[in-house]
């Protein structure tokens, strides 16, 4: 019989090598159990949460140990990470300005995203005239989570910088693999930072504007796990912000050399860096805010538990999608601190947020970030304040042009191209400039590259920054306007094996029955719009977060014009998302839908506020402190609140905040890439997914060590007999398993593997008050 033949083959004819391999595996397995048993609870949790344990026999004990060390050292390494830029992935070098005019840009982006969706993670950067964009997408094939970030910056920098940037990119070619590392190496929390740092150089070089967001994604996850694995949605964003900062710094360092060559004003380039940093600081607040969502979600989960018959349906297939648009305003570092405090002081609307916040941001980290943000500014003092004062009036476009012209006269202009955002066009510089620029740039380029080398140092700036902060000299930093669009489409399905086999990284966001929660808030001059919606019929939940912090341009003269440009861009973005919002809201019955529809307008309004500080621009050097008006703005839920928010925000020394009349949204065309949102939303498919327990719930189950006297001696998950000292977990039904076996099962399921009794019942009683 066929059966017997093959049986023999596989059984007795087993090659020697295979047998040896199996023996090795068995050894490793044993070592694994030993290792797990010797772990402290804390360490075990740490490793499990970071998905470092793997499965028995997979890795050697040494490897496990090194992983543990790595994860433990993670935070510290991050601090030092600035020096190691190696991992960043730059797939597409920045296009030379000449090629930058690409009318089909939007479509190409879409196409690219389509491919990305299949392939996973990609980074793309491009130039358009004075605008540069960088798009990063990461897809988690397992979960279908998708993250896309696009940063557009309007470049005021010289063409030389671009050249320098290109040079840099070449030097930093390690990119493509770096990404993979990130994607796969989520466990490598510590590595995250270095990546970011790498990314930075590119951005800065190409166009100071381009912020690299990719690193964020990868980085974000590790952070989450470390900081608090629980915060699923919000955290990634935050983490993202950080990378940007790091990125920004390198840029500055690079840029400087160039600037100095071209024009003695080395100082000018630096200001950019300073700008980037503020973002980081801003980002943090977001995190804190973001958490509330998560926390909210959790309660739902508990409610959701199968036990409650009514809600069960809803729970069945929660899909949480998060769209986050992050436009980060630049804030003055000092202001940031104030703002952050404010945020904390202000009671979050949802009680949950309060509780959550404390755990979220590890204080040390925060401190670091802030320090960084401060530092850059001081150093890069007064970049061309004089220039910045170019005539400001006129339309946005005109204003921009003027600005550019001014630059051009100084020889700073870069090539003009069609901007990604039509409205931004005004800012674009003429091509002739570019050419001439390049010719001149040639000589400059080399120096710039040299500058690139300095980048790593720049990253080390964290320490330096601290010092720098102390020595802040009043100078108007020149900051390139940057618009970051961060689109995050994330599906959270309770039972889904996102991050297969890992319990830790799983996030649970489930929405309650209450439909259409809509939060609208602005924080630190940024706006964040959150709206979650649950669809009863489809049992689907959307949580969309749109954050629009606006990065302010500190330059006096430039400030206004750029801010206008920014506004228009933002308006476009918001318009795009407005559609999205409409799309999403239209289905819902709740009264919130109206608000959702109007959101774009609101946002635009809110955005306008930041502009209020034009006057500050006039003060050249002295104006070192730029008014982060926007920062102060906090619009919450209601539009009216926005005004209040302004009032609450104390304008910095130099700054004044003055609300502007809302701008009507007339832009016929929304940014093409906004369609992506639709794309992803539409591509969402429902699946039946089992639900698992949260880590807390699992951890609440009792644990003990196996003793020889126990009657049941075999774990029915792995069909392995318990060994002395094995850690067992006992379910409420009193069935026991290896901790690592049952944890894995429970992360996706909620019943006992033997008797199928719901584990949650008891867990719920414990956790739910």
């Amino acid at each position: 019989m066929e059966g017997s033949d093959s049986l023999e083959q596989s059984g007795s004819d087993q090659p020697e090598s295979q047998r040896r391999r199996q023996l090795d595996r068995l050894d490793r397995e044993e070592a694994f159990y030993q290792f797990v048993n010797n772990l402290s609870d804390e360490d075990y949790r740490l490793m499990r949460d970071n998905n470092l344990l793997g499965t028995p026999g997979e890795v050697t004990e040494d490897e496990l140990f090194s992983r543990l060390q790595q994860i433990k050292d993670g935070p510290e390494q991050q601090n030092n990470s600035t020096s190691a830029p190696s991992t960043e992935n730059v797939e597409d070098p920045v296009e030379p300005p000449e090629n930058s005019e690409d009318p089909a840009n939007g479509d190409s982006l879409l196409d690219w995203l389509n491919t990305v969706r299949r392939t996973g993670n990609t980074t793309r950067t491009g130039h358009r005239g004075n605008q540069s964009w960088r798009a990063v997408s990461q897809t988690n094939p397992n979960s279908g989570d998708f993250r896309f970030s696009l940063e557009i910056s309007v470049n005021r920098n010289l063409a030389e910088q671009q050249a320098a940037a290109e040079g840099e990119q070449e030097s930093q070619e390690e990119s493509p693999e770096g990404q993979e590392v990130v994607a796969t190496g989520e466990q490598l929390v510590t590595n995250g930072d270095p990546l970011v740092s790498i990314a930075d150089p590119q951005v800065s070089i190409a166009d100071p504007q381009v912020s690299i967001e990719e690193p964020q994604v990868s980085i974000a996850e590790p952070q989450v796990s470390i900081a608090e694995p629980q915060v699923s949605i919000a955290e990634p964003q935050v983490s993202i912000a950080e990378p940007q900062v790091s990125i920004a710094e390198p840029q500055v360092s690079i840029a400087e050399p160039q600037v100095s060559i071209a024009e003695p004003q080395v100082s000018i380039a630096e200001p950019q860096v300073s700008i980037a940093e503020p973002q980081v600081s801003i980002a943090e607040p977001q995190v804190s805010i973001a958490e509330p969502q998560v926390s909210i979600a959790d309660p739902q989960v508990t409610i959701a538990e199968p036990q409650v018959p009514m809600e069960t349906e809803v729970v069945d297939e929660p899909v949480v999608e998060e769209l986050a648009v992050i436009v980060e305003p630049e804030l003055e570092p000092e202001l940031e601190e104030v703002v952050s405090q404010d945020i904390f002081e202000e009671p979050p609307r949802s009680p949950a947020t309060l509780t959550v916040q404390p755990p979220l941001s590890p204080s040390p980290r925060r401190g670091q970030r802030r320090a960084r943000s401060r530092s850059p500014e001081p150093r890069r003092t007064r970049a061309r304040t004089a220039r910045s004062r170019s005539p400001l009036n006129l339309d946005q476009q005109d204003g921009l042009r003027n600005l550019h012209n001014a630059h051009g006269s100084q020889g700073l202009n870069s090539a003009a191209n069609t901007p990604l955002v039509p409205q931004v066009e005004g800012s674009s510089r003429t091509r002739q400039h570019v050419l001439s620029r390049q010719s001149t740039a040639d000589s400059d380029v080399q120096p710039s590259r040299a500058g690139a080398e300095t980048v790593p140092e720049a990253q080390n700036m964290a320490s330096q920054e601290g010092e720098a902060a102390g020595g802040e000299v009043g100078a108007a930093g020149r900051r390139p306007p940057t618009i970051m669009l961060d689109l995050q489409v994330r599906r959270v399905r309770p039972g889904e094996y996102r991050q297969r086999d890992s319990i830790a990284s799983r996030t649970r966001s489930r929405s309650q029955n209450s439909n259409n929660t809509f939060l609208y808030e602005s924080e630190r001059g940024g706006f964040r719009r959150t709206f979650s919606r649950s669809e009863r019929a489809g049992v689907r939940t959307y949580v969309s977060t749109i954050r629009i912090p606006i990065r302010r341009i500190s330059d006096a003269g430039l400030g206004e014009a750029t801010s206008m440009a920014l506004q228009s861009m933002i308006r476009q973005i918001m318009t795009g998302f407005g559609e999205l919002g409409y799309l999403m809201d239209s289905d819902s019955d709740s009264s919130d839908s109206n608000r959702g529809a109007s959101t774009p307008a609101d946002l635009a309004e809110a955005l306008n506020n930041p502009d209020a500080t034009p006057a500050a621009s006039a003060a050249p050097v002295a104006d070192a402190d730029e008014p982060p008006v926007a920062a102060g703005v906090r619009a919450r839920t209601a539009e009216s609140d926005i005004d209040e928010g302004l009032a609450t925000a104390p304008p910095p020394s130099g700054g004044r905040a003055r609300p502007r009349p809302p701008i009507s949204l007339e832009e016929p065309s929304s940014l093409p890439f906004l369609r992506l949102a639709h794309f992803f939303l539409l591509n969402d498919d429902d699946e039946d997914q089992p639900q698992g327990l949260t880590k807390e719930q699992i951890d609440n189950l009792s644990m003990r060590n196996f003793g020889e006297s126990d009657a049941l001696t075999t774990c029915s998950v792995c069909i392995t007999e318990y060994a002395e000292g094995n850690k067992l977990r006992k379910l409420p039904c009193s069935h026991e398993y290896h901790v690592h076996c049952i944890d894995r099962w429970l992360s996706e399921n909620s019943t006992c593997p033997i008797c199928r009794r719901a584990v949650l019942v008891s867990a719920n009683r414990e956790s739910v008050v």
Partner: protein
Amino acid sequence: MQRASRLKRELQMLSTEPPPGITCWQAEERIDVIRAQIVGGTGTPYEGGLFSLEINVPERYPFEPPKMRFLTPIYHPNIDNSGRICHDALKLPPKGAWKPSLNISTVLSSIQLLMTEPNPDDPLMADISSEFKYNKQLFTEKARKWTQEHAVQKNVGAVEGNKENTPDQKASSRKREAFGTHQEAVEPPKKSCV
């Protein structure tokens, strides 16, 4: 991998004390593909037949159920033309009843039982199911005919016949599999018997 160690144990158990009427062995060199044969129960229309199944053990086994499929055509309300089986032990909760304490042996036994006792109320093949419910004689006739055509002939026939048929089946089934798994990767399986 947990799968490997567990599979090894299971195969050992299967070879040492196989459930009655069931044989099971590892196919080729692959660790994740297992073949099994179930003898048609006496007193059933499948009597005398030998039904081969292909078992794919997912990476996450035992946290995911094994994927089982009939290679031998079988006329059964809960088994479709491509051999897919509607059986709750083959699905994850909440819809299914898979749990890690089950194993390949127990699942095969329950499939054996399913062959003996079809479940027309949870049909995969609606027409066969209604036939089973309302015209049992016809059903029995057809099922017996299928058994004679596909299950008996093949195995009674020479070993060569077996070898000829199996590769084809394998090839085609592989294709199906590849397609199937691909789909699953994109959109996780929605398995329902309807």
